[in-house]
């Protein structure tokens, strides 16, 4: 692959797209597929063939369009019409109304804050391009960043751009990406590895899945750029075993990229080689922790090990290894294409760029959103999310999954950022955002997350293995109503102990849901205690 060839493919694909009068994009994300969007797509294709409209109209399956609450979604371009809750029976009407007025009954308004307030960088192609065709990605300026880096930039210049962008790891901890890259690049070694962490174990989060399913080539490009920058020539994409569709699309994408010479030996006629493989996870939350993830790729039990040495010095098979989250890597191509300074203009200090959230719970517009950092939680929930569904009252918002915490209404005006969320006792996390209404008991929510951590604890270190079980039973006494004041004191003490002494991130953050609910909803714990007193 040389730059000219890439240009040729891009031009040819764009010319082909411009020739058509209509583009129908059917969402084939997981939520819409569950509602039979594949049949809708097949039916539309069939109808177009039957009516010999192939010359003017094309159908393609695209990644998640975001508004999962009203799926399946079908978009008609260039009119920018969006149809919601489409059924197979509606397909004929859609074809008939291609040139006429849109069908009012199915119309989904696109001028609502859900679409207007989003800022898409990571998801710019998701929902726009066909993830199973590399040409579509190339036509959307895909792989230009890689070629630009390979032909015009030195590895240290690539790192320089990432440092300037201020990008921080999107997996949850928020470690500065540029710093991580330069650490790995400085270590001398015969072999180095790049790993993409797609072990999205946090229940309620599906950002990485949507990116992998909707725009797999972007991850490949991001990884190739990372490999070039740090001097690695082998990479692994670690994906949860449950994500069948994402794995299938990734494998297709890797094959296509290899065929075009974007992966493999002497990429773009340079001396840069990069080989990429997928690895399947097998259902263990702890494998999101980087040392546990490395153990899994080596074919062992996913037990974390003490750090240091950090994977950047001693990682996969003992070689220096760079591990980045899916969303982090998805940010890399646009940063290289537009420059680090461009990225740094978005968002407040210390939290640059955008963040993808999976919004769930009793709000009107559930689904996948990407917002600039610094936006307030209130804007996310009540403007983009469309507010609570009628009959439900807002009580709390949970971010960061089992490692995060719950925030009450008083903190809704907090700007979203790594440090601002940490200050109030929760974390940015990987991007799960679950709204909790007034019917839920916060003690029960805390107990639910503790049950999760208890089950997922790998059992290597004592504070986490024993502590989470004890915390779970203590919380059980609260939900049963048999807790005493001593139990409350013990709960707080134990939370602190598990947090301070656990080996890895799972144990260190496991008490977070308990601590944050204790902080903001202490009255509920007290109410549960009082109930016990009455029954005694």
């Amino acid at each position, binding site marked *: 692959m040389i730059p000219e060839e890439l240009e040729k493919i891009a031009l040819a694909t764009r010319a082909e797209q411009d020739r058509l009068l209509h583009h129908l994009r059917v969402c084939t994300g*997981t*939520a819409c*597929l*569950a*509602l039979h969007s594949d049949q809708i797509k097949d039916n539309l294709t069939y109808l177009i063939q039957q009516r010999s409209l192939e010359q003017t109209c094309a159908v393609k399956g695209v990644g998640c369009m975001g508004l*999962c*609450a009203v*799926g399946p979604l079908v978009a008609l371009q260039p009119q920018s019409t969006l149809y919601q809750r489409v059924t197979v029976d509606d397909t004929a009407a859609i074809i008939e109304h291609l040139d006429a007025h849109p069908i009012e009954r199915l119309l989904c308004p696109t001028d609502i804050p859900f679409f207007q307030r989003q800022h898409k960088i990571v998801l710019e192609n998701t929902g726009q391009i066909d993830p199973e065709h590399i040409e579509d990605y190339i036509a959307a300026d895909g792989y230009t960043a890689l070629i630009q880096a390979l032909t015009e930039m030195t590895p240290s210049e690539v790192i320089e751009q990432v440092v300037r962008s201020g990008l921080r790891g999107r997996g949850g901890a928020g470690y500065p990406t540029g710093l991580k890259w330069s650490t790995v690049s400085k270590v001398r070694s015969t072999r180095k590895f790049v790993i993409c962490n797609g072990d*999205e*174990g*946090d*229940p*309620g*989060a*599906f950002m990485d*899945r949507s990116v992998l399913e909707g725009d797999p080539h972007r991850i490949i490009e991001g990884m190739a750029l990372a490999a070039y920058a740090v001097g690695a020539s082998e990479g692994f994409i670690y994906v949860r*075993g*449950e994500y069948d569709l994402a794995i299938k699309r990734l494998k297709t994408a890797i094959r296509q990229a290899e065929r075009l010479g974007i992966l493999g030996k002497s990429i773009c006629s340079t001396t840069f080689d990069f080989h990429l493989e997928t*690895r*399947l*996870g*097998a*259902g*263990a*939350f702890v494998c999101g922790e980087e040392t546990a993830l490395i153990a*899994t*790729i*080596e*074919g*062992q*039990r*996913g037990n974390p090990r003490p750090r240091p040495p950090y994977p950047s010095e001693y990682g996969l098979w003992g070689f220096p290894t760079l591990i980045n989250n899916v969303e982090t890597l998805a940010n890399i191509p646009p940063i290289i294409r537009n420059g680090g300074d461009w990225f740094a203009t978005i968002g407040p200090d210390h939290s640059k760029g955008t963040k993808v959230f*999976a919004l*769930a*719970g009793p709000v009107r517009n*559930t*689904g996948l959103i990407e917002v600039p950092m610094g936006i307030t939680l209130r804007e996310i929930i009540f403007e983009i999310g469309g507010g609570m569904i009628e009959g439900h009252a807002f009580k709390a918002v*949970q971010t960061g*999954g089992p490692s995060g915490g719950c925030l009450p209404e008083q903190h809704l005006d907090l700007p979203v950022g790594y440090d601002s969320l940490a200050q109030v006792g929760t974390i940015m996390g990987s991007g*799960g955002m*679950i709204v*909790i209404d007034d019917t*839920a008991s916060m003690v029960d*929510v805390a107990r*639910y*997350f503790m049950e*999760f951590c208890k089950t997922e604890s*790998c059992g290597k270190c004592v504070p986490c293995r024993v502590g989470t079980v004890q915390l779970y039973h203590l919380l059980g006494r609260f939900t049963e109503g048999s807790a005493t004041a001593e139990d409350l004191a013990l709960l707080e003490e134990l939370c602190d102990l598990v947090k301070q002494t656990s080996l890895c991130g799972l144990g260190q953050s496991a008490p977070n849901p308990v601590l944050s609910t204790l902080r903001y909803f202490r009255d509920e714990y007290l109410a549960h205690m009082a109930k016990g007193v009455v029954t005694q």
Partner: protein
Amino acid sequence: MRRMGYGHHALIETLHSIQESFGYLDEDALRYVATTLRLPLSRVYGVTTFYQFFRLKPKGEHHTCVICVGTACHLKGANAILEHLEQRLGVKPGGATVDGKVSLLTARCLASCGLAPAVVLDGKVMGKVTADEVIAWMQKWTHRDT
């Protein structure tokens, strides 16, 4: 295994392939993998039991019902569905119905939180379900096949 050069790191990928072909991992399969990859059987067994994804027992003969117990589904009553199933059909997560027709499993999150509570019946995701609906589907399976 050959594709990965019989390296020790091939273990998890191999187990995935076996489970995909046979539905579960039996002792013979584990022994074979251990011998071929030159790994102690204890290590193979250890890895197999560490990960939730691998099954050592055959699943229900015909059908699977996976209930999502992710956060959003939990808040919308996934646990109540499980309790109903246990009371009325006597089936617990990880087990199968008495006649072995349907296996019941739970999933951490199906990433279909917009559809909560969600269940997967034979690979088909159904959203916004109630306990009665799930029981009706499972009973339909057991009846139709007998």
